């Protein structure tokens, strides 16, 4: 039984009592999930901070 406990330990130290409180959820923006599906790690790592289009928009006079 002791071995089992070692094999499965979670929780911050000391909190052995199961807490049953419910937690809320904040869901992600649909666009982010779609974007993440469309790129690979390689593509992300090769990306610039700002693209030319973004630079141009930022420089436009308001």
């Amino acid at each position: 039984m002791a071995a089992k406990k070692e094999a499965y330990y979670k929780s911050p130290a000391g909190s052995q009592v199961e807490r049953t409180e419910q937690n809320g959820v904040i869901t992600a923006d649909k666009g982010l999930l779609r974007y993440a599906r469309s790129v690979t790690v390689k593509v992300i790592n090769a990306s610039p901070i700002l693209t030319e289009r973004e630079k141009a928009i930022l420089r436009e006079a308001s």
Partner: protein
Amino acid sequence: MSDELKSLAEGTAKGAAEGIMAGIKNWFSRGNGGNKKIRTQDPTAGLDVDFNAIEVVRILNKAVCVNQAHLIQYIVLAGALHKKLKDRMREEPEDLSGLTNRLGALYDFLNRNLGLAAQRNFRFLHDYYLARSPKPPWPRICLKLPDENQPGRANMLADVFRDSDVGYNSIYPVEENTGHVEVMRDGQFFLCSDIPSLAKEGRYKNPRLDPHRVEEYGPQNEEELSESIDKYGYARDLAWERCWRPSGGGDGPARVDAPLESCYKSTLIIPMTLKSHDKDLSGDFKEIMGLEDKSRNIFGYLCFDHLAGGYFNNDPDVAVGYVVADILSLYYMTQLNYTKRSTTYQRSIELCGDPLETET
């Protein structure tokens, strides 16, 4: 400054630094840390975990420093691009082309740079695990987010950014993964260091694990162990590898070709949360963020897994995981603030459509 004073100042600074380092060493040595050698529970894993507290602090110091600059940049540039969209909407709402261009720019910037932030922080975690266990393999890392966009399916979870491409998408209901169920229940991290035993006892579920194969799973015989060595030089647990499906979900039988690294025995899940009952958080903030009146609101999960049993430690793996999860949550909240929480962004989507589809 005179040489004498300079020498005194340097001596004082050195003494202070030594004191801080001693404190840090002491802090890390409370649990499994310190500079002690720790042998993992699984003798076949062959991992010697040697924590170097000073190295860990240096890595975290660098991570915070780099993120400080990048986060400020992210907030400022996102705000500027959002303002450009808002201005165009107010001044020329009939110019759909111009509006679409600005919406697309904001959309691309926010998501691309969130991805860059994730990858940057995954690399700090790589540095940490490299310092902690110099020999590969190292853990896989993934950011998962609650997904409400799967038609007809509630409580879904989607992998968003990973430290390496895995060849499969992982979108499944929270209740199909014991780790996420546990985190949802108590809002705390989940650490399992022996998935095979727990799964065999019916106490661990994962959408990629074939329950029938798990039921049949048992230790390999000596002959099989000696014949199968993986690319890292460790004995392969072929029976365990056969328990994993190569991709998430489905009721079909497991196949033998699930990637080696995806057949893990240890997992650590760190939630990204906001404590709704924190008395220092204003009611207005909670309303804007859409926080439910629950103990905590969970908005993401930083997930780690590893081939070997007994790989992760309560201390300091969990603490380091929380540092990075909290850093990433700052970028992510900025992204949410300018998308889901922005009426300008939502109105632009209604007018122009999804930027990913209308990209020119």
